[in-house]
């Protein structure tokens, strides 16, 4: 997994609530069996006017000029700022894969859906929720100021606004540790292999019908 420590990045706005994972990466791209190739189709139905299909020649696509990420000022953005319940719906991990491959390293939102939130951290994408009032101010700043950037600092768990104002965010200690170190979570869990084995033996003794 990619490490994350600190980022000074251009911000792009996604000023709507309930952005679902079907919107982030539409179903037709889920037929792939690899982990790559999704960034090209991030927000496909919103980003392009022609219907998107896997394996398309991107140079022939028809971009939707009204879609926010197509505005030249947001090209190269690494921080996405969104409203409530971002990432709701399907469990597809293709959503964080697409966001990362497109170039985002951080998503800040009023709130996140559980499964998406979890999936972000498995891939080195930092997701943090901020108070609605702060999201509001950031979105206003982004709208009025071309080149609006944020510094996101994981060790101190803070977001630094262009004004210099610093705002803290919460993150579970385990998630922070794995992001900072780019840990292989399975490897960490397997350090408990004896405890898992012991649990299994006791579990089988009490509920043998759970084991074939």
């Amino acid at each position, binding site marked *: 997994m990619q490490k994350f420590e600190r980022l000074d990045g251009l911000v792009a706005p996604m000023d*709507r609530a309930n952005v679902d994972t079907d919107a982030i990466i539409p179903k037709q791209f889920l037929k792939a069996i690899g982990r790559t190739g999704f960034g090209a189709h991030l927000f496909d139905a919103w980003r392009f006017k022609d219907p998107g299909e896997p394996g398309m020649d991107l140079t022939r696509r028809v971009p939707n000029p009204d879609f926010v990420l197509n505005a030249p000022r947001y090209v190269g953005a690494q921080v996405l700022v969104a409203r409530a319940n971002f990432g*709701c719906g399907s469990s597809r991990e293709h959503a964080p894969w697409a966001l990362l491959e497109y170039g985002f390293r951080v998503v800040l939102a009023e709130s996140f859906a559980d499964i998406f939130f979890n999936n972000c951290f*498995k*891939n080195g994408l930092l997701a943090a929720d901020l108070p609605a009032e702060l999201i509001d101010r950031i979105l206003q700043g982004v709208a009025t100021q071309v080149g609006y950037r944020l510094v996101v600092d994981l060790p101190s768990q803070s977001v630094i606004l262009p004004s210099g104002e610093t705002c803290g965010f919460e993150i579970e200690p385990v998630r922070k540790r794995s992001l900072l170190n780019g840990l*292989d979570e399975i490897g960490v869990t397997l350090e*408990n*292999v004896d405890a*898992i084995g012991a*649990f299994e033996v006791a579990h089988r003794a009490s509920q043998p*019908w759970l084991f074939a």
Partner: protein
Amino acid sequence: MSAQTLYDKLWSSHLVREDADGSALLYIDRHLVHEVTSPQAFDGLRLHGRKPRRIDSILAVADHNVPTTDRSGGIVDPISRLQVDTLDANCEAYGITEFRMNDPRQGIVHVIGPEQGATLPGMTVVCGDSHTSTHGAFACLAQGIGTSEVEHVLATQCLVAKKSRAMRVRVEGELGRGLSAKDIALAVIGQIGTAGGTGFAIEFAGSAVRALSMEGRMTLCNMSIEAGARAGMVAVDDTTIDYLRGRPFAPKGEMWSRAVAHWRTLVSDPQARFDREVHIEAASIEPQVTWGTSPEMVAPVSARVPDPAAISDPAKREALERALAYMGLTPGVAITELEVDKVFIGSCTNSRIEDLRAAAAVIRGRQVSARVKLALVVPGSGPVKQQAEREGLDRLFQAAGFEWREPGCSMCLAMNDDRLMPQERCASTSNRNFEGRQGAGGRTHLVSPAMAAAAAIAGHFVDIRGEL
């Protein structure tokens, strides 16, 4: 010991370890696998030289990509075919039990688990699919996971988790005629919102829930993810046990009796405390129809399309305007005036035998309206399809003008050829009305099977209470 909720019991009986900060390793009893979210997980295993820890805990099926038309000749779409072939190859390589596309037991993963008795009370169940919450109907702790977690569970038989808060949704009293679990589910979401259950495990309780069949309870738990809750559950009672008796994967003989004795304990203690309680009177629930692009955008069938002008919060007003524009709706129009182009009866929410019976009962020898271009019935599994055919439902549907298909996810997410064209309006028994969910530009209205069937006949939404 203090009084425990059902969720407390399921959680604590699967804890391998729990750290001081609340991060826990939860042991997983049943791992359901499908073709879309597993290939990268199997690749990850191989990349690290790891193997699945407990093959006997895994049951796999191809459901999302499979065609619902004749498939004896295999899948035509090469990309879909590769994904299904990849699942077959992975299952074969590790000796995992898989119901392949043409296996008579094949079907939607959340239909086949319970149907085969592979989902049992007291289990922790995971699947790389958000609607895994369905299995909670059996007093399981069942939740959807991402692909990295699929790999993690394969390799370790554990999930890294943190305990959720507990919510109880009590639905008391009797549902009106023609109402079903789907209407309860949509009414609950309408009340608490699509993020109302975020961070919670929901237990559905109350006399109206107790009165539901297992099929109905599955419908209800299925949609807890649409309320934001990763897990939904219902306590064990006779209905649960009667459903499971004799299922192929369920315990037999003396083991069955031992299991049942344990399952009887899988209820919340009377004094157990919940972090949040929601109460709904069943009698107040009308048939529900979603009008927007999020399941919380729902209304009783007797209502009208809402008017953004009546909303003061600018962000909410804008969201509503956007939804109405996408859905092609005018404020103030009666829901019953909305005409439908397609009708879909299927999905892991509503494709079980009881759902098909409820839809068939509405049809009663009538014809699908001439304005409806396509009305599809897609049974949730091979056994559901066979049962329906034994009851003659297939002939009834076909005589009315419905198409009768092979089992799979189908137009719930339109990964195969079953989909909406831009701007087509659909009455659908599935669970998500997101933009483009059933096909780019398609307009989905979520309803119960009876409501979908009635819309197919009338060509527009109708209040089925006047029909029955």
